[in-house]
Each structure stands twice: as C-alpha cells, then as structure tokens.
C-alpha cells in the first residue's frame, strides 16, 4: 500500500467519527494549503513526468474521495439534526386547535331551485323570470280560468288594496308573458315565488316556490312531455325511479297529468310519508290548452306545446327530511347551517 492510500484511509476514518463542528478541520488537515495530501504534491518536482502524471492522478482521486466523504458525512449529520429538530417540534394536531373558517350556506330553497334549473338547462331550456304582482288576466283569465270557476277555490288569492292587481297564485302567468313577448319555438323554465291566501301550518304556507316549464313548437307532443319529465326526475334523483303519469285536471292544459314517483321510503308498499298510497306526487303537467294559445293569439292548429309546474318546497322537504314547512322560513341559523 502506498503512502497516498494510507493517508486517505486515515483521513476517511477520521471523517467517519467526525461531528459537524470538526469536519471542516479534517478537510483542512488533509486538503488545506499545508494539508497532508497537499504536502505530497509538493514532493513531486523531483519525479519524472510519467511518475508525476501517475501520482498526480492518484492524489486527485484521493482528494475527490475525501471531499465526497466529507460532503456526504455533512449531509448525514445535518439530516440527523433536522430529524431531531422536527421531532422536538411536534405539535398537538387535535382538530379543536385548528381555526374554523366561517362557513356560509345557501338556503335550501335556492339550492333546490338551482339543482333543478341546472338539469333543465342541460336539457336545453332557457331560464326566465316572472313578476309576483299580476293581473287577473295573466293569473286566471288567459289561463282559461274564468271568474267564478271552482278551479279558483284551490287558489285562494291575495288581492292588493286600491287596485285590481293580485299576487300570483302560481308561476303559470309567466307562460302568458313569455308567449306574448316571443314567438315559437319556446323552451323555457321560470322559477319563482307564489302566494296563496291560506293559514300557515306544517304543510301549508302563504308563500312557496314553483318552477314553471313551457315548450311550444309545431310538433310538440305528450310523448315528448313524458320523455323530458322522466329524464328530469331520473336525473334529479340520480336513479331510474318508477314513475307514473296519472290523468288530472288543470284549466290551462288538456290533457293534463300528475306525475307520481314510487315512494322512496316504503318502495310502494304504503307508509306515512306517501299516506299509504305508495306514490308521491311530484308535479303537474299537460299539453297547453287551445284557449291559452288563443289568449296569446297563437294559432292552436299550428302550434302544440306542453307545460309543467313543480313545487320546490315539497321536493326539498322530502329530500332533506323536513317535516314542517315553517322551518324553511324561520331562518334559524342552527338549521340553515345544517345544509
């Protein structure tokens, strides 16, 4: 073993046991200006070129080896120190210590309207708005509900003082406005607030929300109405629920239908929620009555259309298990923050 090797071995041994504050001294001891390896270089002058070349490269290799060893040792030591430091810095991560950013909430009703509107928009519907103060013409007459018709019984109306205006009892007057203001084809929904003059209890409210839908064109059929509303309900519930179209009656549609879904709670056997029928009423719909087209001066021979209206509260209460409608308008933050 030559001298370079033994010096290198000696140096590497020292590195193995070195600490962070002594390790640079080892480098200086061997590689500094007067270092043991540097010293060897100084003796080279007496040697032949061949020898110089050979020993020179050996020395350089030894230098590199020592530098590498020092660097990796340094890294090893700093890593170890960092690990120790972090170990000492361990904090209590219990969630109670964390800051709670205040969380905002949308109201259940607007959230439900949004959810429903999104589905209709994806089916190609426009979204429009109506007015809440209406005239008798838009709310009743144009919708084929003449004065003193029993259909008005179910829609107790709030009238405004010193005017003939009223608060709309359904979103359907929007159908008339839209048809008056535009030409077919029409494909639109109108979410909005409606008013009924009745006492508020667990299942009734003087105010609630509906989404009105209207599609008018030259080839619109009941079969398409079934198609669109089935698709809507399936998307809303995220599954192919059983549903039925049941004959019903609305003055402004003919034929009319009520859409029921198989009770999700009892699977159709009958329970408290579906009042034993096995079905839950979801919405009313039908083909636009020719008298409605006549009221807006559309030709009922040329155009056909369908319309539907669905109750937002009913669906929201069902979805979120709310058993009292008043809860929706009490605005108790403890309730609002649940959704």
């Amino acid at each position, binding site marked *: 073993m030559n001298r370079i090797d033994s010096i290198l071995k000696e140096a590497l041994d020292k590195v193995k046991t070195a600490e962070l504050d002594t390790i640079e001294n080892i480098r200086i001891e061997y590689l500094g200006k007067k270092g043991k390896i540097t010293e060897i270089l100084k003796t080279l002058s007496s040697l032949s070129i061949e020898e110089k070349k050979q020993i020179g490269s050996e020395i350089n290799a030894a230098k590199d080896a020592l530098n590498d060893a020092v660097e990796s040792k340094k890294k090893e030591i700093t890593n170890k120190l960092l690990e120790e430091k972090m170990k000492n810095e361990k904090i209590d991560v219990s969630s109670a210590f964390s800051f709670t950013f205040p969380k*905002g909430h949308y109201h259940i009703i*607007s959230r439900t309207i949004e959810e429903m509107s999104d589905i209709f928009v994806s089916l190609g519907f*426009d979204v429009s708005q109506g007015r809440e103060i209406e005239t008798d013409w838009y709310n009743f007459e144009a919708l084929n509900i003449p004065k003193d018709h029993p259909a008005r019984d179910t829609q107790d109306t709030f009238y405004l*003082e010193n005017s003939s205006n009223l608060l709309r009892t359904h979103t359907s007057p929007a159908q008339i406005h839209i048809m008056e203001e535009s030409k077919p084809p029409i494909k639109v929904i109108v979410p909005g607030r409606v008013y009924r003059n009745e006492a508020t209890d667990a299942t009734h409210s003087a105010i609630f929300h509906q989404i009105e839908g209207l599609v008018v064109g030259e080839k619109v059929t009941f*079969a398409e109405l079934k198609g669109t509303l089935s698709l809507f309900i399936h998307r809303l519930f995220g599954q192919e629920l059983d549903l039925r*179209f049941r004959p019903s009656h609305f003055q402004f549609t003919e034929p009319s239908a009520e859409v029921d879904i198989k009770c999700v709670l009892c699977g159709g056997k009958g329970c408290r929620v579906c009042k034993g029928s096995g079905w839950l009423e979801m919405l009313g719909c039908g083909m636009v009555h020719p008298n409605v087209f006549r009221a807006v001066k559309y030709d009922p021979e040329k155009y056909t259309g369908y319309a539907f209206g669905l109750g937002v509260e009913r669906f929201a209460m069902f979805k979120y298990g709310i058993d009292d409608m008043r809860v929706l*308008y009490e605005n108790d933050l403890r309730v609002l923050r649940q959704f």
Partner: protein
Amino acid sequence: MKISYNWLRDIVDFDLSPQELCHTLTSLGVETSVISGGVQWKGVITAKVVDRQKHPNADKLSICRVNDGNKEYEIVCGAKNVEAGQIIPLAVLGAVLPGDFVIKPAKIRGVASEGMICSEQELGLKAESDGIMVLGEDTPLGKNLEDVLGEADTILEIEITTNRGDCLSHWGVAREIAAKLQKIPNLPIIKNVKFSESNVIEIKDKDLCTRYIGCQIKGVKIGPSPKWMADRLESCGIKSINNIVDITNYVLLELGHPLHAFDSSTISGGKIIVRRANQGEKITTLDGKTHELTSNMLLIADASKPLAVAGVIGGEFSSINETTTDIFLESAVFNPGNIRKTARTLNISTDASYRYERGTSWEVAEMASWRAVNLIAELAGGRLELREDVNSPDNKKVIIQLRVERVAKILGYEIDEKTIANILRFLGIEISTKVEKVLIAEVPSYRNDIKEEIDLIEEIARVNGYENIPVVKESNSFAGAGKQNLSSNKIIKNISSGLVGLGFCEVMNYSFAEIKDLDKLFLNYSYKIANPISKENEVLRPSLLVGLMKNFNFNSGQGTNDIKIFEIGRIFDAKGERKVLGILMSGTVWQTWWKWEENKINPVFDFYFAGGVINRILPSNEFTISENRSPEKYYHPGKTAAIVYRGKPVGQFGVLRPDITENTQNEVIYAEMDIESIESEYKIKVNTYEHVAKFPSVKRDISVVSSKEVKFDKIEKVIKQVMKTGGILKDFNLFSVYESEKLGSDKISYSFRLFYRHNDKTLNDAEVNADMQSLLNKLDGDLGIKLRS
C-alpha cells in the same frame, strides 16, 4: 265523496277487488282510496255469549263465557251492550285485526282473556261504532265471520278534479269503470208517464235557471226509510232523516243530481217563481240561520215569499216534517258560477251547491226527477198530481268533430279510428262519421267538461291509459340556448357565492310585513293587501330589512352573536316590484379561536369591515363606494355610503340607527342593492391580458398630515391622478390612520405605502424621488396636506 263498492257493482258488473278498483279509477284520473270495509281480518269466528258476569276488579268490564259450538272461551269485554244470548264476532287468540293487530293472551285487571269480542270499528267495517257488533239470532256458530256476513261492503273515498262534477255519484263513477272495462252500466228501470202541461212554474231569470222540473205529489206518508236505503246513505256519510228527504239524498248519491222537496202546504198562491232576490230580502234556512240576500242571488219563491236559496239550501219554513202529506219536488239546472258566488257569499256549502258549482246536466235532471217520483210512490205512497217541465231551448247536446290525425299530433302516437270510436262510445258519447278520418261526437250533457276536440283527445288518452303513451326523447328540432338568462343569474350567482365564501348564510323570508314592524324601521309601505288572513300579511315588504331584522332578533335571541346573513328577493316599493340583495352583519368577524385570544384580536363588524365585504362581492371594480346623498332613514346618517356603478347609485350600506338596534351591543350593518338595475346596466366586461413587468418595483412609505375636513376620497383621487400622469406609481395602500393631540384636534395623519415600477427598466432613486415629490406637491397644492415631520 264516499262511494259504496257494492253499490257500484249493482250498476256495473266487474270483478276487481276494492284495491284493484282504486288503482283502475286512479289511473283514469279519479283518485280513489279504500277508507273502510272489506274483509281485513283473519281468525274471527261467530260465537254465542252464554253468560255475562261483572268483572270483580273493574266496574266497566264484564267477564263473558262465549261458546263457538265446540269450545268455550272466557273473554273480558269492555262494551256496554254485551248481553248473554247474543251472537257476536269473536277474535280468537292468534287472530289478526286491521292494522296488523294480533290478538294475544292477556290478563285484564287480573282476569285472563282468551280473545276479544269485536266491534264493527275494530273489524274495519265502519269508521265509528258504538259497542260490540251483534249478529242475527239465526247466525250459525263456529263459522268464519266473513262467511256469514254475506258481502261486507267496502267504502271508497273519491277525489275528483274540478272539471269532473259528473263523477260525484255512483252512476258517474260506474260510468268510468264501464268505459275502462268496456261494459254497459245498468241503472234501475225508471218509469215515466205523460202529463199534460200545467202552469205553476215561472222562471223569471232564465239566464240562471235553464231547466226546472216540478212534481206535485199528494198523500205521502212520512216515515223512516227502509233499512237498505238508510244503510246505503249511512255508509256514504249521510244521516237518514225520513223517507222523502232520504229519497232525494239517495237519488243524489245514485245519479248525482240534487233534488229538493218542499212541503206543498207552505207554498202560497199556487206558484213557484224562480227569480233573483230583492236586495236585502231575508230567508231562514234549514240550518236555522237567517240570511240577508243580495240581488245577485237566485231564489225559489212562491207568490209572496222566498222558499229556498236556489241550488244552495232550502228554507226552514218550507221544509218536510212528520206532518207533511203533500210535497213539491224540484229537479233543476242552475248556473254554476252564480251558485258558487251565492254559496261563497253566504258561506254555505251543501251537497247540492257542491254539485251545482261544478255543473249539472239537463238530461240527468229529468232522470233524477222520475227516479225520485218512482221511489216516493214505492216507499212513501202518494200520487203524482201535477208535473211541469220548463226547459230552455238552448239545452242541446254538444257536437264535436274529431280528426283522427289530431290525436296523434297531440299525443305523439297513433291510435286507430276503431279504437278511438270504441273508447268514446263506452263513455256514452255517440259517434258517427261522414268524412273519412273525422268522427262526429255527440256528447251527453252530464259531460259538461267536454267542449272541444282537445277534450275528446284527453278522454281517449285517459281511457287508453297514460301508461301506453310512449316516452319519447325530445325531437330536438329546436332547443333553447340553455342560457341562464344572461347577466341576471350570473350576477346573482357571483354575488351569493362571494357571500357564502365569506361565511354568510342565505335566508328566505315571507314577502309580507306588519305595519308596526315597518314603523320601527322608519319604512313606508306602497302595497297593502286587501284581504289578509292575519296581521302578518298586511302589506308587502318595501325592503328586505324587515325580514333580515327579524332573523337577526330571532337568532340573537337564540344566543348566536355573530350574524352574517343575506337574502335575494323581491321588494315592493314606490318604484314597483324589484329584485334586491340585502345583507346584514353584526358581531364578531371571526369565530372565537384560542390564537385570537392569545393575540388579543377580536374584530367586530363595523362600517369599514362591511365596506370590505361589499367591495369583495361586487362583480367588477367599476362599482365604487361613495358618499350617500339620499340615505334611507334607517341608517345612521354619519355612517352610510352609496354603492355607485358608472355614476348611478345602485345600492346603499351603513350602520343601522342605534334606536333600531337598542337591544344589541354591537353595531348592525345593513346593505341593500338593486339587482335589477345592476343587471340592466352591467355588461360583463372581459379583461384583456396585460404583460407582467419583469423589472423590480420600489416601495416607499410616507406619512402625511391632513385636515379632518378633507375626505380620504379626495386624497385617493389625487394619488390616482399622479398614477395616471407619472406612469410609474402603480399602486398604493393605506396602512395607518392616526390622530393625536400633538397633531392638533383638527388634524389627522395617514400613512401609505407607494409602489413604483417601470415597465421597461429598473428605476433608480432619483426617478422615484422625483415622482414622489410631485405627489407631495400636488397633495399640498390641492388639499393643503403636508409630509409629517
């Protein structure tokens, strides 16, 4: 309306169970459910009460020994009417009664009972019953109850839609069943006889009465009805009174046409006059109440006095009683709208008015009259002495043309002509053809809902079954753009998601307000409700503040101190109806946290925090906050600002007056913005890409002293001018506002940090100093603001 299952089967032959029948009727549009009856039990047998003793430990109970012919049972019974010798229905151990009620061995007050003696109510045969059910004396023992009862009737409840008044009878419902099953309904044979014309009926107001048939029957004997009739009335919820009244009710339930019987002896002058009442005319009706009538109401009167309110309720004076021998029987057709108005004005709803409001048939009026005459002759004796029929010539059947291709155009699938004709015929509509593919339909007058072609199409769809209409995906020959009404929804979405992100909760309030609540908030209403049901619905809200303030009070009452809520809704003020956004905030900005406590940070919402919220949620920086020139009265006049968009005020915010929020410790801040005017003005601005400077910026902090008179807005304006002209001052922010005695009580100091940057080079000190100096000069020159020494 209550309908008897057995009665229906008398009229139309079907073998559907009550449940199947409900399903069939519901699928036709007549919502039907079983309310009582039918065999709903298991393990109930007939047995005889052999002996009855008082329960030793209970006064109201008895111990009965009951024998079924084979075996004896000891039964504890609570009914008052239980007697030895009776044959009764016995639910033995293991029997199941309606509602899945299983009979188990039980000890009642120390005595074991081996079953239960049942009442009709417990068996589900009746909705209510008094005491146990007692069976006939010759009932065999030990038999299953259902085998000896014969056919236990089932009572159905039907709910009709407003257009189907014709279904308010057994015949009407039977017609629906018959149409679906393609059968012909059978009514009892109704005999009629020819009568010579007489002249006792005078219809003065022919617009309100289109047919009036009067029958004078003499020598009737008032008495109880036969059991079968009383039972049928009772099962449909009508009390049996006497044979004559019961017959009119029976015919009503059977055929659906209201009849009225007067005591002839009370009719003076030998005349029946159908006329509008005189304003203020009075009548005491069957319910014992005296009503004052208006000239819009139709009366049945004699020569001198009113006898009945037409189609609504009879008069007390002219009613049938035990001593009546001669009657005058009315079967008439009145104007539905007029009857509805009268019934509503008088606040009376009767079986008659309910049907008249929905329209009655001039054909059925005649059938019903004869049916009642037949029944009276059969059950009460008496002779028909006089019959008069005043019928309007306008009473004709409706004729409608139906184009076969139109059915497919509406429904979206083809139904062949033969099927269509068949469906309509079984509905009682006569069909003929003259032209190919066009049917001529003659509609019976009881179907007053069928007025035009589309109504026939509904009938076809309904009877053929909605389930047979295909489910077709929209042809998509056209579609809306699926646009969310452009800016409106976009703005609302942006704003509410901004607020929710800041921890605000959305609320929804009623649109109504009480005047006293408005007064407290210095608000005036513009719309008053003419017919409110309670004070809460007096007026329409002129501001969202009313509701939000209620929410604030409610929630702070529940102990919630930090309240951040908003609402988007319509308000109704002098400008009309419009959509606005209201935001209310109060209390601590952040939830409590141990680190805040540690650092003593606990900011509470004030005007400036609110300003930050407003700035954060506004959809673009073109909205600015500036001086409020006409603040709402509910704001603290010194702490309110306007929200301005391109020079036009679109909202206000500020601290509520302390006298509004007396009971609260913290300031309450309210903002209201007019979404509609933002929507109509605001165009969604698309920002174009701007290069980001590569050269470093230079920061400088300066403090200046200003007179308090100068609003900071003015200073900001000067800074912005310098930013524009110099081009290297890019941004600034205010980091300190300071007052002290040393400065003087009328002075205030502001410190701000200025950011300088050049787009093409690194700035040197001299350049920055020069620009800063020009700012200081301008501040001094324009506003007298000096650098703080």
